[in-house]
C-alpha cells in the first residue's frame, strides 16, 4: 500500500518530456492524473524507476474548436474538463456525457483523457465513443510525431502501440457527417462502477435512411472493438425498430466478452444486443447525446 521509491521529473515542455523518456527508456513511465498508475504502484503491480509527470504541460489542458476541422481535446484534460466543456456540449455532447458517467467526482477531477486511453483497460469509458466518432490520437516522440486512428492505439489489455518515448498530446474529433452519436455505459451502480458493457454508436441518417454507421464496444473484448458487421448491416437501411433490433443481435455476435466477478460472458453478450439497439435509437432521434 506504499509507493515504491522512484526518481521524479516534471518537465516544462513535451520535447523535454520525450527527451527524458528516451533517455530512461523502459525504466520510465509518464504520470498524468495518477488515478490508474498510483493505484497500481501502491498495489505493487508497477514499479517504474523514473516517473515523468506531465502536469506542467498547460498547453495540453484545453478543449478547442478548430473551425471547419473539428474539436481538439488536449490530452491532459480531466474528465470533468470534458464534462464542463461548452465546445463539447455543443458539438459532441456524447463525449461529455461519456465522461460524466465515469468513476466518481473525485476521480473525474484528476483522471485525464490521456490516462484513460493509454491505460488501455478494456472497460475504459472514453475509447468507444472516440472510436465511434472516428477520433485520432496525436503521439509525440523524441524523433517526431504521428497521428493514429483511435482504434489503432490499442494492442491488448493494458497495452498500446505507444513507444517508450512517446507522449499522447492531443485527441482530435473531426467534423462529422454523422448526425448523431451516443454512448451507453452499464455499471452495477450509478457511481464508482466500471463498465460491465459500454456501447458507442455514431450514425449518419438522411431522410430516414442510415447512410453510415460506426459501432464501438467496450468491456467485451481485449481492447475496445469496432462492430464492423453491424456497421455494414446498417448502411443503407431505413431506420425501423426491427432494423435497430437486428443490429443489436449482430453486434452481440461480434463481441468476445469474458466472465468475471461483475458479470458472465453470456449476460454481457446480451447487454450488447440491448444497448446497441438503444444507443442507435438515441443517436437517430436525438443527435450527439
Amino acid at each position, binding site marked *: *500500500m*506504499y509507493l515504491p521509491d522512484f526518481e521524479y521529473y516534471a518537465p516544462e515542455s513535451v520535447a523535454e518530456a520525450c527527451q527524458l523518456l528516451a533517455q530512461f527508456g523502459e525504466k520510465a513511465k509518464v504520470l498524468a492524473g495518477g488515478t490508474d498508475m498510483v493505484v497500481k504502484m501502491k498495489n505493487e503491480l508497477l514499479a517504474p524507476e523514473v516517473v515523468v509527470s506531465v502536469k506542467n504541460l498547460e498547453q495540453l489542458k484545453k478543449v478547442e474548436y478548430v473551425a471547419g476541422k473539428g474539436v481538439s481535446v488536449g490530452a491532459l484534460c480531466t474528465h470533468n474538463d470534458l464534462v464542463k466543456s461548452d465546445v463539447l456540449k455543443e458539438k459532441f455532447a456524447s463525449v461529455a456525457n461519456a465522461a460524466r458517467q465515469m468513476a*466518481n467526482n473525485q476521480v473525474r477531477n484528476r483522471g485525464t483523457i490521456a490516462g484513460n486511453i493509454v491505460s488501455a483497460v478494456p472497460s475504459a469509458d472514453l475509447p468507444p465513443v472516440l472510436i465511434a466518432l472516428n477520433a485520432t490520437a496525436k503521439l509525440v516522440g523524441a524523433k517526431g510525431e504521428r497521428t493514429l486512428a483511435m482504434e489503432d492505439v490499442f494492442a491488448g489489455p493494458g497495452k498500446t502501440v505507444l513507444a517508450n518515448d512517446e507522449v499522447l498530446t492531443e485527441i482530435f474529433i473531426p467534423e462529422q457527417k454523422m448526425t448523431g452519436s451516443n454512448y451507453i455505459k*452499464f455499471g*452495477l*451502480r*450509478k*457511481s*464508482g*462502477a*466500471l463498465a*460491465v458493457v459500454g456501447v458507442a454508436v455514431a450514425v449518419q441518417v438522411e431522410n430516414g435512411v442510415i447512410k453510415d454507421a460506426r459501432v464501438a464496444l467496450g468491456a467485451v473484448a481485449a481492447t475496445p472493438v469496432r462492430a464492423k458487421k453491424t456497421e455494414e448491416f446498417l448502411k443503407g437501411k431505413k431506420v425501423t425498430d426491427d432494423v435497430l433490433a437486428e443490429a443489436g443481435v449482430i453486434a452481440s455476435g461480434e463481441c468476445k466478452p469474458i466472465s468475471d*466477478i461483475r*458479470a*458472465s460472458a*453470456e*449476460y454481457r453478450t*446480451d*447487454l450488447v444486443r*440491448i444497448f446497441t439497439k438503444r444507443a442507435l435509437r438515441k443517436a437517430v432521434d436525438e443527435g450527439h447525446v
Partner: protein
Amino acid sequence: MKEYKVIGKSVRRLDAVEKATGTAGFTSDMKLPGMLYGKVLRSPHPHARIVSIDTSEAEKLPGVKAVATHKNTSRELFNTSATMTFTVPPMQPVLDQYIFDNVVRYVGDEVAAVAATSEKIAEAALKLIKVEYELLPTVYDPKEAMTTEAPVIHQCEMKNVPGEVIQIPFGDVEKGFAESDVIVEKEYKLPVVKQAQMETQAAVAQVSLDGKITVWCTTQTPHPTKMILAKLFSVPESKVRVLNPPYIGGGFGVRIGCSAKAEPIAVALSMLAKKPVKVVYSREEDFIASDTRHAGYVSVKLGAKKDGTFHAMHLKATLNGGAYCSFSVETPGVLGCMGLAVYRVPNQFYYGHSAYTNTTPAGAMRGFGNPQAMYAIESTVDMMAEKLGIDPLELRLKNIMQVGDPWVLPYKCGSTGLAECIEKGAKSIGWENRGKLNKPGAKKLRGIGMGVGTHVSNAWPFCGDYDNAYVTIQQDGSVHLASGVPDMGTGTSTTLPQLTAEVVGVSLDRVSMTLADTASTPFDIGSHASRALYAAGTAVVEAARDARRQVLEYAADLFKVAPERLVLEDSVIFPAGQTAGDDCAGSPVCTIGGKERKSITLKELAYDAHQRNKQFIGVGRIVPENAPPWHAHFAEVEVDTELCQVRVLRVAAVHDVGKAIHPVICEGQIEGGVLQGIGYALSEEIKYDDRGRQLENSFHKYMLPTADDVPEIETGLVEAHEPSGPFGAKGVGECGLVPTAPAITNAIYNATGIWFCEIPVTEEKMFRALKEKAGKTV
C-alpha cells in the same frame, strides 16, 4: 400531555460543528510521541498449519522495533467479541482464538505483526518474515461443514457447531400444521455482507512502565473491551483504560468487543516494543479480516387457516459462522426470537445455529440475524397471501402481534404501533395502485411490495445487560454527564444530553458529556442492540433524577419547604405554583448571602453548596427491560426486463420508535438502514473463489449503493408510548435494515412474477431468472 423543553426536538447535534469542520477526534487521526506503526502479516491460505516461522530478517530491518507471533505473545484463549464478557449463564462464552495461532483458518487470519517507526518500514518487514505452511482441507459452506467428510475447524460437541443449538418451542407445532388448511414452505439463501463502516478498525495502545495499559480505539463497547484485554494480557482491569477519542467512524456492529484484532495486536506490539503502537486496518484488511454478517440458510414453513389466520410456523437457520465464533451463538438466537415475535402464531418452533467454515468470521451487523429472518419470513408471508388469495397487507394486519399477546420473549409486548405503521406506509406508497402499474407488453415493469418487522431495544435476554451513569452538577450549575456508551455517529452524544437537560431542568447548552472512556465513566455494556438511547438513556435519566433530587433537597432547606413543592426549570428553582421572579407575595423565601429571595438560580445554589463543601452527584444504576420497536417498509421497484436490472424508485419506511427524542436523528437512522437494506437486497455480496479468497475486498468491487443510488425515501414516525423506555422511547438504530430486503423482493415478484429465494437479486441473477421464465413460457 406534558410539554417537553428539550426532548422531542431536532436540536442541532452537539458534535455537528466538530464533525463538519473535520476537527472531531478519531483513532485513525491519533499521534503520540514516539509512536510506532503496526502492520499485520495475514494468511494467504484458507486453512493451514504453520510449520515454521522465521522473523530474523524482519527484525534486522532498520526501524523495526518488534515482531509478534504466536511464539512470543499471549497464549490465553479469547474471543474478540464482547460475548466473552456478557454471555448469560448457564451458557458459556466460546473461547476459540489466540492473538496469533500456529493454525490459520481463513484467508486473512493473523500470522504475525511488526511494529516499526513508519508504516512503510513495517510493511516492508512483513515481506521478510518467512512462513512455511502445511495446507489443510477446507470447507466454505455451513451445511457441508457439519458433514462427516468436512475438516474439523474447531473441536465442538456437534460437528463444527460453536456453542449450542438454539431451540425455541411454542405451542405444538406438529399439531398446528396438521390443523392448518394451507402450508407454504421455502428455503432462502443469504449472502455475506459487510458493515462497510467509514472508519476501518483501529487502535493505539500505550503500555506504561508500571504496567498500565491505555487503548484508544474504535470499539463500540469500551468497558467490555477493557475486560477482554485485561484477561488476555493478565492485567487487573483497574490498570486497563479503553476509550474512544471520542468518536468512531461508524460501527454497525463490527466492533462490539474488540475492533477485530486491532486492540490486542496494538497492545501486544506495544508490550514488546515498549512504545505506543498504532494499528489501523487497510480497507482490504477490514473487508477480509473483520466480522461480516452471517450468511447461510433460513427456511420457513408457515401454516394458516383458510381465513388467513396463521396457525403454525417452523423456522430454521443454518448460519455461516466463519473461522472463529464471534456472535455465532447469539445471532441465531436473535434471528429466531425476532422471527417468532412479529406474528401471533399459536404453534411455533425454531431451530438455529451457526457452523464454522474457512471464511472470514461472521459476527454482529446491524439487525443481528433479524434481517436474515425477516427476508425469509416476509417472503413466505407474501407467498401465503397469494395462495390464500388475500391481500398481503390485509393478511399482515390480521396476524400481527398485539400488546399483551403471549410470545416467545421473556419480556412483555408492551407497545405496538405496527398497524399504524402499515396504514401510514401503505398510504405513502400508494398501495391501492399495486398491480395496476403496468401496461400490457411493457418491458419496464413496476411493482410494489411490503415487509414488516420488530426488533429489540436492548441486548438482554441475549446478553447480560446493565447500565450506569453519573450526572454531576458543576460548581456553576452547569451539568456534566458521564456515560460509557460511544457515539458511533448515531447521535448518542446529543440525545443523552437532551435527556439530562430535560430531567434536571436546564437548557441543553448547559450540559456536556464525557463518553466511552472506562476511566471516567461507570460500566456500560456499550452501543449496540439499538440500546444506547433506550438502555443507557434509562441510566442517564436515573442519574439526572438523582442529581435533581439532591439539588431540590438542598434548596428545600433554604426555602424551608418540602422538596416536592419546588420546581427546577431553566436552571431556576422556585416553589411550585408561582413563576420565578422576585416579587411574589406570600411565597416562601430563602436566604442566601444574607438576602431574602423568592427564587434561586441553579448557578447560585451550586456555588452556595460548594462553599459549604458539597457537590450534587447523581448516580444512575439500572438493569434495563426490553421493548419492541416496530416497522413497516414499502418499496416500489422498476425492473428493466431487457437489461435485467432492478431499480428501487421509492421506499416508504414507517417506524414505531416510541417517543422520538430527536426526530431527525431517528429519520437519519431509518434512511441509512433503508439504503443498507437496498444493498442487501440487490447488490452487496462477498463471494469466495475456490482457494478461499474473498473476491470483493474493496469498495471498488463491493457494490455498496452510493449516494447517487439513493431512491426517494419517505420516513414516518409513529410514537407508541413504551412504558419501560426513557420518556416512552424505544430502539431505532438497527430497524431500518430489517424489513427492507423483503419489501424489495416482494415488489420484484409483484412486477415480474418471479420469487427470488436468494439475495442479492443481482443483474446476473435477474438475467438467468428471466431467461428461465421465458424458456418455460415459450
